[in-house]
């Protein structure tokens, strides 16, 4: 589009320094520039609700309902945040979410990595059955079997407990299949050389295969963490005590408690949103890679 302005055509002064060619705005660039502007406006509109939620949470309550609405707060007031931190178990919910999401992430990576390694590298009876069984899991919507899952977890006495919350979320066929794909690509000579040297399979997995696949491990880890953090349905069903809720479930409980208090409601929403937003912004490339790896399977 703007090939005439690429840096390769910058003229040199006799002293050897580069001078930028003065930019000329050509008329045929106008439609392109307009489309770019439209794109930017659309992107801004897309995240605007989030900005609006944040801005509402730092306004005093009577300004939140001001008409006309104020785009920038006339006065900044953090009392909504101090209120919810003092008057709701939100800190407890944060802890619950952090502990359960981290546990799920670590366990999913570990268990799926081990299983995928065996599927990829070891020949054993029933291997093909197991792999097809895992693939079949993709077609099964776990939501349809909520009732028997709940009955089963109840029988195990794990309702309203961390184990009841975490264990069902470890059944992640996706991670196994992704890992297997990546492990299949490791050249056989690497593993064979290590085995000849007497390394056990566990050793080969953790000292060779894992270090070679740090990238996908990080990607899978991040998206597993985000998914575990955001999980609503199962934590909602399995946990009864308010103290034991995870954040996504917890913030639905406070809506009615505060009544009509928009700043406070938005403050809880913002607080609940911060971890996954941060995780995404920091690990954007990893999240992208993870999303694409898991979607490419189905």
């Amino acid at each position: 589009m703007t090939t005439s302005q690429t840096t390769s055509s910058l003229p040199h002064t006799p002293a050897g320094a580069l001078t930028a060619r003065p930019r000329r705005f050509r008329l045929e660039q106008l439609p392109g520039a307009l489309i770019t502007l439209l794109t930017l406006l659309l992107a801004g509109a897309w995240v605007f609700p989030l900005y609006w939620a944040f801005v509402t949470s730092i306004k005093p309550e009577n300004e939140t309902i001001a008409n006309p609405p104020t785009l920038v707060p006339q006065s900044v007031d953090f009392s909504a945040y101090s209120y919810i931190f003092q008057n709701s178990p939100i800190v407890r919910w944060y802890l619950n979410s952090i502990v359960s999401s981290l546990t799920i992430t670590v366990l999913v990576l570990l268990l799926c990595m081990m299983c995928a390694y065996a599927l990829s590298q070891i020949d054993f009876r029933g291997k093909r059955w197991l792999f097809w069984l895992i693939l079949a899991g993709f077609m099964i919507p776990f939501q349809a079997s909520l009732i028997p899952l709940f009955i089963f977890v109840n029988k195990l006495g794990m309702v309203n407990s961390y184990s009841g919350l975490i264990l069902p979320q470890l059944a992640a066929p996706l991670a196994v299949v992704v890992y297997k794909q990546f492990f299949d690509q490791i050249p056989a000579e690497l593993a064979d050389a290590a085995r000849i040297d007497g390394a056990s399979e566990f050793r080969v997995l953790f000292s060779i295969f894992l270090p070679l696949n740090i990238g996908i491990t990080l990607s899978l880890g991040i998206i597993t963490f985000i998914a575990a953090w955001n999980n609503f349905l199962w934590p909602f069903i399995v946990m009864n005590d308010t103290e034991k809720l995870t954040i996504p479930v917890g913030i639905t409980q406070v809506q009615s408690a505060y009544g009509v208090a928009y700043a406070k409601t938005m403050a809880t929403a913002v607080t609940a949103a911060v971890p996954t937003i941060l995780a995404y912004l920091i690990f954007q490339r990893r999240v992208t890679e993870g999303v694409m790896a898991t979607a490419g399977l189905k």
Partner: protein
Amino acid sequence: MLQSVPTAQRDVLSPEKRAQARRRHLVALMLVAPFTVIYLLFLIYPTLRVIQLSFTNSDLTGAGAYNGVQNYTRLLREPTFWTALRNTLVFILLTVVPNTMLGLGLALLVLRLKRLKNLVLAAFFLPYVLPVSVVTNVWNWVLDSNFGLFNTLTGSTITWFQDPVWALPAVAFVTVWWTVGFNLLLFVAGLQGIAPEIYEAASLDGASGWRLFRSITWPNLWPVTSLILLLQLVAQFKIFDQIYLLTQGGPFDKTLVLLLYAYREGFQQQHGGYASAIGVVLMVAILVVSAIQIRVLNRGDRA
């Protein structure tokens, strides 16, 4: 790769080789067992059990007697079930194709950008990493009938999530806002995967703009497009969270979808067997529709 011993030599298996095979299977078992046990217990077993439960009149403790196909005949005669099915299908219509087309359109816009590309991509994807309750809280506030931004700016008085006409479209809109980033990402990857040489060759032949899109972009993009359509279809069939949080299935069951109906019957009315039947219907519907869609969409691919 650890090979199993070739058949011809199996009869003369030395004790060494047998011990080796035993060790190999033991190691495989240790590696595979933790995941497989959990997978069998918490995914496979409940799936089998829901089919079994659907033929009983059990409550929420699993205790109940077999009652044949009574749950299913009741299902077919129950108007609420048909309402839920219809609402689910309408919801799918309101989300699957618009979400996919929007994702494609945005991908085409995003790929024109150079320095701003990642920023714009992040803007559209950001909602996707939010928990559903944050999404519903935010949109409950924006679409609040009295003080919400939208109603104050447009002067509308519609109570969006309680309006019999607007509730379902409103939830569909929120769903699209929440999830379009995922489609966008896949489309960007798909579009970037089309070799630029194909475009160069075509534009040398004089093709441009819409012609290029129709003859080159669309066919090459078709595998990604059909994948996204399939993923969307399955996902929206299973819709629950947003509807539960925004409308509870109301008003007057106008937004009641299949899974919400199953939840209501099972966890609120304690009709475990009947709710399981609904779950089985949902599973079968997803399987059938996925199979049909794969068939239909792949035929277009070969053409």
